[in-house]
């Protein structure tokens, strides 16, 4: 699924990564616990989270993720956006709650990360 489709499905507002909306992603995960996100090392492309701090961006960077979606209209700080821009990560926010956002992406064919 292209990141642009994720943005459309979630009615999301983009903060950075305009030039990467054509990137294809194949799976996603959703968590507010970054420790749990780091426990998986498959190629998940998208992180959905309600947690807003710099460690979300660093976790995504460590996991080679392409896109972060903040749910419930949570807004990242300018520092976080800059950090993501430096790492080439697309950042957006959606008014959807985590469960709704996951449901929308799942129904449209974006699958979860397999256990490793």
């Amino acid at each position, binding site marked *: 699924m292209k990141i642009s489709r994720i943005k459309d499905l979630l009615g999301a507002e983009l903060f950075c990564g305009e030039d990467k909306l054509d990137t294809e992603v194949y799976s996603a995960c959703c968590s507010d616990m970054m420790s749990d996100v780091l*426990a998986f090392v498959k190629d998940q492309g998208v992180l959905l989270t309600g*947690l807003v701090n*710099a460690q979300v961006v660093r*976790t995504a960077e*460590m996991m080679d993720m392409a896109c972060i979606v903040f749910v419930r209209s949570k807004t990242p700080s300018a520092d976080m956006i800059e950090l993501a821009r430096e790492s080439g990560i697309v950042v957006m926010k959606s008014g959807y709650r985590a469960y709704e956002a996951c449901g929308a992406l799942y129904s449209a064919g974006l699958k979860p990360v397999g256990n490793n």
Partner: protein
Amino acid sequence: MSENVTFHFDVDGENFSSAGEASVLVKKKLRQLGISPEIIRRVSIAMYEGEINMVIHAEGGSADVTVTDKEVAIVLSDRGPGIPDVSLAMQEGYSTARDNIRALGFGAGMGLPNMKKYTDSMEIETKLGVGTTITMKVKLS
């Protein structure tokens, strides 16, 4: 690579939001050295977890990374409180992190288990009231 490459970082224990900066820099350096993405990811996740641990539990410390033609070695050293029971600390889900750390997305008790999982070897030297040194190695092939 004929010569070893080393990096040294001081990890600031005062500021949680800067935790992980050293790991991000190491990741970039390893990319420049042409190391495979899979190895880079394992090294950087293990180091990142270690860095977070040093900030949460030990008010910072130092990180030294050495790249040879055979492996990447990461040595994380702190002067924190030490780990009273290493085998307990190695259990998935066991954490002594406070609730304010959980609110930041960490403290799930996955740090040390993840570090072990993503590296080929991990050694913990710890002494109560003195500090902890963790040495991790990831083979390049």
